């Protein structure tokens, strides 16, 4: 079949052809970018934190009328209170392990700093940033981290300090990502680093495979895997405890926490948010991402349906309009399949023009989004997949009216219009 008659016929419907191509182009541009956004968000949400997240929960609490923690006596008092809490929690029947920690991945409350190989390093651009977890010898077992080199903390390693005190950190455990950045040649264990421009050395005693920082937003994107564990309990008028329940006993353990802690000391604040499962922490950290993905998904669905329906509607109209011509062609010997192909090829031409413009629009929209918002460059694969999907949708949408056209009997040609 030659294209000439199709093109000639399309020229008769310039406006309709332009409109449907334009719609396909817009749809392609928006759907490509929306799907790209969805893909990025899904990828973000599915990043493993490095924790064993099942059975894990976090207790955040605040003491009332406790010492300020700025003077040595106050710090000692607070540390006693914290250790009482830890002991009480560890004695709960459903609890497997407990570690104090200033934060936990995805909590969006971080203590960040920088590690360097030289002492007294100024805080500048390009320095290796990190987030600290101040915890104790139960950290690895409680968080479920995998030690890949060196050793874990022991009880003898653990210090304590006021939360705002600046103390030396003689030993640290770092993540593999951080070890690779600081020591590209490998062999981080036993090496010395300096924290936050200090002049006191810290020895790396162990490396864990993976541990995300507490920041889930754009603030932490540059150093999401650069975590440093410090064997120090922080003493302040508030404290956080990471608790690993025995397998399957998380809810029971969570339920037991408030009464247990009030029994230790009633002068404290425990509210609805104080005992939070890690699943909840993860859900709230990624709520915006999941929401955005859902929203984009809904928009794509509506758009594709509207465009497909639009193609069906317009083609149906054209079939109705050309009823008689089709009859004439059939009477002159065209087979049913010829008529079917005619409409399919016509749609392919229109959709082809649409996707050509659409590819340009998609890339333009992506570039505009990149320049105005935090957005990565769209991989060509997304656009090419989009092109194929649009062409396929066009063909699927045109099939029903085209089949109806092919069923027009030749006898129509002989009837008066």
């Amino acid at each position, binding site marked *: 079949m030659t294209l000439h008659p199709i093109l000639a016929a399309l020229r008769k419907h310039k*406006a309709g052809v332009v*409109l449907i191509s334009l719609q396909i182009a817009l*749809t392609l541009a928006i759907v490509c970018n929306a799907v790209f956004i969805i893909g990025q968000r899904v990828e973000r949400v599915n990043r493993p934190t490095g924790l064993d997240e099942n059975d894990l929960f976090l207790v955040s609490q605040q003491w*009332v009328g406790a010492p300020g923690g700025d003077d040595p006596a106050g710090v000692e008092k607070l540390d006693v209170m914290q250790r009482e809490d830890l002991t009480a929690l560890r004695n709960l029947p459903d609890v497997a392990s407990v570690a104090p920690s200033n934060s936990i991945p995805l909590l969006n409350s971080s203590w960040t700093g920088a590690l360097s190989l030289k002492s007294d390093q100024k805080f500048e651009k390009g320095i290796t940033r990190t987030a600290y977890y101040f915890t104790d010898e139960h950290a690895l077992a409680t968080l479920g981290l995998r030690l890949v080199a060196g050793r874990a903390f022991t009880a003898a390693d653990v210090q304590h300090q006021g939360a705002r005190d600046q103390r030396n950190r003689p030993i640290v455990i770092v993540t593999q990502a951080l070890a690779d950045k600081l020591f590209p040649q490998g062999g981080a264990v036993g090496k010395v680093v300096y924290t936050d421009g200090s002049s006191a050395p810290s020895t790396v005693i162990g490396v864990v495979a993976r541990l995300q920082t507490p920041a889930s937003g754009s603030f932490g994107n540059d150093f999401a895997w650069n975590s440093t564990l410090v064997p120090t309990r922080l003493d302040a008028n508030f404290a956080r405890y990471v608790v690993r329940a025995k397998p399957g006993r998380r809810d029971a353990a969570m339920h037991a926490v408030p009464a247990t802690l009030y029994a230790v000391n009633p002068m404290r604040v425990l509210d609805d948010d104080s005992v939070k499962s890690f699943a909840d922490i993860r859900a709230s950290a990624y709520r915006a991402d999941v929401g955005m993905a859902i929203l984009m998904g809904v*928009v794509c669905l*509506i*758009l594709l349906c*509207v465009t497909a329906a*639009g193609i069906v509607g317009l083609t149906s109209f054209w079939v*109705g309009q050309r009823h008689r011509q089709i009859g004439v062609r059939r009477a002159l010997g065209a087979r049913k399949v010829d008529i079917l192909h005619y409409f399919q090829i016509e749609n392919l031409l229109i959709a082809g023009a649409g996707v050509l413009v659409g590819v340009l629009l998609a890339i333009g929209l992506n570039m505009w989004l990149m320049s105005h918002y935090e957005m990565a460059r769209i991989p060509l694969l997304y656009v090419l997949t989009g092109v194929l999907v649009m062409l396929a949708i066009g063909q699927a949408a045109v099939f029903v009216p085209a089949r109806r056209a092919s069923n027009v009997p030749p006898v129509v040609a002989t009837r008066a219009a």
Partner: protein
Amino acid sequence: MLAYYLELALRSLKRSPGLTALMVLAIGFGVAASMTTWSVFRAVSGDPIPWKSAQLFVPQIDNWGPNGRGSDGEPPNAMSYNEAITLMRDHRARLQSAMYQISPSIVPADASKHPINVSGHAVYSEFFPMLDVPFLFGSGWSAADDAQRAAVVVISSKLNQKLFGGSNSVGRTVNVEGKDYRVVGVLNDWNPQPRFFDVVNSGGFSTGVEDVFVPFQRAIAVGMPNDGNTNCNAVPAESGFVGLQHSACVWIAYMAELDDAAAVTAYKQYLDGYARDMQQSGRFGWAPNNRLRDLPSWLDNQHVVPSDTKVSLLVALGLLLACLVNTTGLLLAKFLRRSGEIGVRRALGAPRLAIYAQFLVEAGIVGLSGGLLGLLLTGVGVASVGWVLPKDIAALARVDFSLLVLTLLVAVIATMLAGLYPTFRASRVQPAWQLKSN
């Protein structure tokens, strides 16, 4: 005549119910998606204090120097204790307040109840008149209370309800962090969104309420620690909260009311003069690099409107545009199918304008039906943003009268615009051809 066109339009729409339904659905969904995202955008981009935002200014002083600046050369977005106190002491604006976020515990008088945790700010007395904070009972504290570090507190109506059953609690005592504070004022529902007076810490939006305000110097004196962000360009030399006050770390928000352009210029000169003095004294090793932004540009600078909200709105408007293109195509098909009818009407003497009127009425009806469907879907959309978007933002999106009107207007006007070209084509139909061809 309009009634006749309406009848014609309804008749024509009924003739091809599938096509009509398709157009109405497209308009409905397109408008609903746009209006839902618009309701969210409108909620987060609103001016929290429209009558005064142009007079409220946020000063920034560059106390970190070139190494501490972002890639855009911006100074820190908060103040160190030293700078905040100096600015308060010099008192160059009509009203001003340094403030920092606190999260103290409150011990209820009823011993059987557990202590609760509240959030709030330590502020100066001028905070309340500067931000036109509404009071249910009492008022803010006085400048004398500031100076004397008085143990006074302003509480929210919510906390007043919880502690005092909603009665006038002025003069009564609240236990904050283990110490007694005298209530001087109870706020009347005050929950501005964005939480504009300290966006660095609130991130703009919050589902929580600010429950307590205490005098800044009082909070410092009793060592009530700051609960918000602390940013340091170097590790503080001394430890503890006092060490933080002596450091260059930034953790204090600041706002000043400047009523006219002259006051703004004078204040800018004052800030630069301060930075130059610091440069001369050797404390700053760099030229002044200060900022003085009014509230709207400050909110913009701090990216208070989440970029997701803007991208969503943009994508939804794209969807509406695609739906309108779709409608134009379908209307074109529909109108031209009736070339015969148009020919007859024209031959019988109908002027082009009458054809215009007839078809625009038809487009209008499609738009109105689409708008009504859109209203319904917008309602569903706004109701469901609650389980899609973060709670603090979703809580702000609501359907109100202006959104309803806007939804209908957008639907009708957009559809009539979409119908313009098809109508133009319909009005160009040559009566003679149509009559001949049959």
